[in-house]
């Protein structure tokens, strides 16, 4: 308890408020580079911003503990309020007022698309830490965009393998009856597109019974639940996230959906934010995954990350914390490798060939950047909800793991 209080005091001490903005890390005078991070700090997605700030604080602790010297970095935060217009304006402000060379964060994929566009225009690097739409890393790579969390294509590739391995149905004679419900914006579209792409590649035969598109931050899912219950389906794939997924599961608990069909959320469903928000209301047996798990892998690095985060904040981290942590480590490492006077091309080169050891990396594996699409390659763990009260207030955590490394499943 005392150590937790100390941690919180330390966190507050290292976070300074400059004008209306938060900053972490080196002071303006000491900083070699300034990073402008965009997160929702208020409203339904506010937890993502708060966890990201704590994650970045841990990243600085981790950098400081390394035997080598890393360049001093100053991180500024800005609340996007989940608005693209505000985020775009903040990028320009960061560049023009704070001379930032790196933008990081952004939870919403649609906002990220616009932020990436502005960052490219402003010729600053955008290190994506939280959004997952594969559009930004598909096709020709954006020269100023790198992503350090799994994207929807990686998650859905693992999902297709999991479905092929787990479900009896999926043959030409006996196709898997599938329903999809995803948020009505780019992330939802891309996740669905990626899933179908990889189901086809995995030669899983499926039959789409319905596709539903509730808007982001929808509050009433009753009609969508009715529509799902109205169809005979084997698997409902859901790509809602955060508070939307919590609301959906809470409302689905009042129906027979989870008896009606298997339920899966392969990208964000296992986020600790969801597990803790639902507590005892999280049903067992849901197929979920996340970009980071507090109980997997059981490595020293992950244990330190989770416990230290808890000491600092009094709560366990959501995947946003590890995403932001990874983003700062990536920027720090690229700057260290490129040297103090490196130009954008050199930094891009170092970012494109980056290798990072992160809390979510299992033993004997390190995340690495794919230079062709600027997407970090990481292991993906898919599990089922099982009773586990080690991380309260969550009462269910993921278990029965199936692990997929970038080269393919274990």
């Amino acid at each position, binding site marked *: 308890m005392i150590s937790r209080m100390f941690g919180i005091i330390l966190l507050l001490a290292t976070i300074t408020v400059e004008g209306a903005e938060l900053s972490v890390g080196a002071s303006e005078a000491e900083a070699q580079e300034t990073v402008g991070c965009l997160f929702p700090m208020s409203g339904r997605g506010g937890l993502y911003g708060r966890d990201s700030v704590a994650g970045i604080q841990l990243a600085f602790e981790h950098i400081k503990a390394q035997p080598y010297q890393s360049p001093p970095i100053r991180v500024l935060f800005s609340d996007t309020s989940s608005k*693209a217009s505000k985020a775009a*304006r903040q990028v320009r402000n960061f560049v023009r007022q704070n001379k930032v060379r790196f933008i990081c964060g952004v939870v919403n994929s649609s906002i990220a698309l*616009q932020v990436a566009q502005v960052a490219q225009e402003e010729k600053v690097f955008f290190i994506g830490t939280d959004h997952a739409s594969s559009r930004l890393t598909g096709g020709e790579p954006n020269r100023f965009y790198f992503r350090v969390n799994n994207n929807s294509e990686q998650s859905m590739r693992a999902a297709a393998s999991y479905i092929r391995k787990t479900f009896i149905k999926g043959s030409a004679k006996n196709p898997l009856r599938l329903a999809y419900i995803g948020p009505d914006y780019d992330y939802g579209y891309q996740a669905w597109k990626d899933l179908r792409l990889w189901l086809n590649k995995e030669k899983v035969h499926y039959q789409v019974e319905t596709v539903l598109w509730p*808007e982001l931050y929808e509050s009433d899912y009753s009609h969508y639940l009715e529509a799902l219950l109205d169809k005979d389906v084997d698997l409902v794939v859901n790509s809602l996230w955060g508070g939307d997924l919590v609301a959906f599961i809470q409302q689905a608990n009042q129906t027979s959906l989870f008896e009606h069909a298997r339920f899966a959320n392969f990208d964000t469903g296992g986020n600790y934010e969801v597990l803790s928000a639902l507590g005892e209301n999280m049903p067992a047996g849901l197929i979920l995954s996340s970009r980071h798990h507090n109980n997997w892998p059981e490595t020293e690095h992950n244990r330190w990350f989770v416990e230290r985060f808890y000491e600092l904040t009094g709560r366990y981290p959501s995947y946003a914390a590890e995403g932001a942590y990874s983003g700062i480590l990536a920027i720090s490492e690229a700057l260290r490798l490129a040297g103090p006077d490196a130009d954008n091309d050199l930094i891009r080169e170092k970012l494109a060939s980056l290798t990072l050891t992160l809390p979510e990396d299992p033993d004997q594996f390190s995340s690495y950047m794919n230079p062709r699409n600027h997407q970090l390659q990481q292991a993906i763990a898919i599990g089922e909800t099982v009773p586990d009260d080690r991380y309260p207030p969550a009462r269910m955590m993921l278990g029965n793991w199936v692990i997929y490394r970038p080269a393919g499943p274990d």
Partner: protein
Amino acid sequence: MHGSILAYALFTKIIVFRSQASLLNDEHSVIRHIRSQETGISSDEELLQTSTSKNRLATKYLWLSLLVALVPLVGFASLYDTYFSQLVSRLTEQQLSTPMAAKQNEFRVFLRERKYELQALADQFDNPDFYTPNGRYAISSELEGLLRLQVDTRSVYGVVFFDQKGQVVWTFPEEQTVKPASLIHMHDFEDAELIGPSAYSIERPSSVILRQSGRHESSENRGSIGLILRFNSLTEVFRGLGHGGSVRVLLQAGDDNMYDVVGQPSPIISTSTQQRTLLPGWILHVIQDPELVMMPVEAMRYWLLLLMACTVAGLLWLHMSISRRLNRQVESLIDSVEKVALGNLETPVAIVQGVEMHRLTQAIERMRLQLKAFIRSTLAIERQATLGQLAAGLAHDIRNPLTTIRTTVAALSRRERNPESREMMALVEEEIDRVNDVLENLLNFARPRDPYATRLDTAELLNSIVTLVGASARNQGIKLSVDSVDSLVIWADEGHIRQILMNLILNALEAMSVKGSTILLRAVKSANEIKVSVSDDGQGMPDDIQAHIMEPFYTTKPAGTGLGLAICATLAKSNGGRLMIESIDSSGTKVTVFLPAASEEEYE
């Protein structure tokens, strides 16, 4: 000649007597006579019985009570059904009309707000260069910010710019593409156009475009601007109309297809409960989904009908069961009563279960027994009276002439020298004596002389009788024995008792001509009576003979008069006693005479 006339007269009397006696012989013959008179009625009854059971009271009761129960039930169910259907229909219509109007307004307000936003954008984007393929690069960062602000609205996917020909020149954000094929369904909305929706696809949700009208002044000069709207935001307007799932709400969009509230395409339904035009080409349909609304109503109706059918079946079963039981019981009673009516007074009335029916059968049984006793008593009295008259007539009409004949024949016989004639006359005398004996018996039966009671020691009495008939018994090889104690004394007429016992012993001897070896005379005391019995181990009697053996003129012997036992019974009765016969076919017969025991005070 005179003798032949007398013989004829005697013969005639005997024939008359026989015929009368035969009539009196069997009470069944009387009943049979009654039955013959009832033959016409019986045949009518049989006709009624066979004319079907539907005229039975219980059956009539069954159908009538069913009718009374079912007609109101069916009527009630029909009325309730009609009332319920109309009520649901009226309530639904009333409940729907107001919210439908509200939703219509909400739909228009939604579009109107977007239209205002569109107009605001159009005012800002006033440079014709913006409406060219390179217009995206001509806008300032402030205008770009304006566009970003616009697409932050979750119901707006993007902004599209059209040239003067109405062709799409660019979109914002650029990944929000608009396919030319989706621009075919255009409908006016106030001074704007609603285009779409885009064709349904599983890949991503449909969109509609709200565009400045081509007739707009600015459009003619420079092109137009449109908002790419989330189609599901239009369908979601109607989510509240679902009435908790009781009705289905469908939006007939500009492409003439139907969509549900979550944007899923739905089969086109030809009829809907209510519909409302939202704007030209866009119609709101509210459908009472039979699976959602009528199913519970129909289910309730079917349950109601099933309940009614079960009630009918239950009533039918109950009534049929009661009717069958009543019919069975009444039938049993009728059978018993008919048997009595047809003269069968021997068969007891079958007992029927049930308090009332049991009482009824008991009453009928009592009636049968009383009727039986009454008929027997009446017959006995009539028979006795008839015999009395007959005997008096015989005494006067036959016995006196016979005495004359007997005297005359005796006189003639004494003077007759011819031995053959004398022998013939002796035979005539014997026959006349035999006729006299018959007449004597008849008179004894009809009008026995009054008893002259004395104290009779049973042992002495029985022994003296054995002495009298012992020789005859021995001749037949039959052992005659007495079992009596000295102290038993009866109070009766000695002559009568002797006659009774002699008759019984002679009957026994005759019955034992085929079978048997022992006759036992026994006297025992029982309360105030002394039972004097004559038992043999002869051939006994079957039940049908036993039932009539006490009746006068009933005999199984070819030369018998049938008066022996009847006289015995009459004599026993005149001495305050009675006669009882017990016989087992092929085993023997026991006749017991119950006589009053003499008290100490009684003396001769």
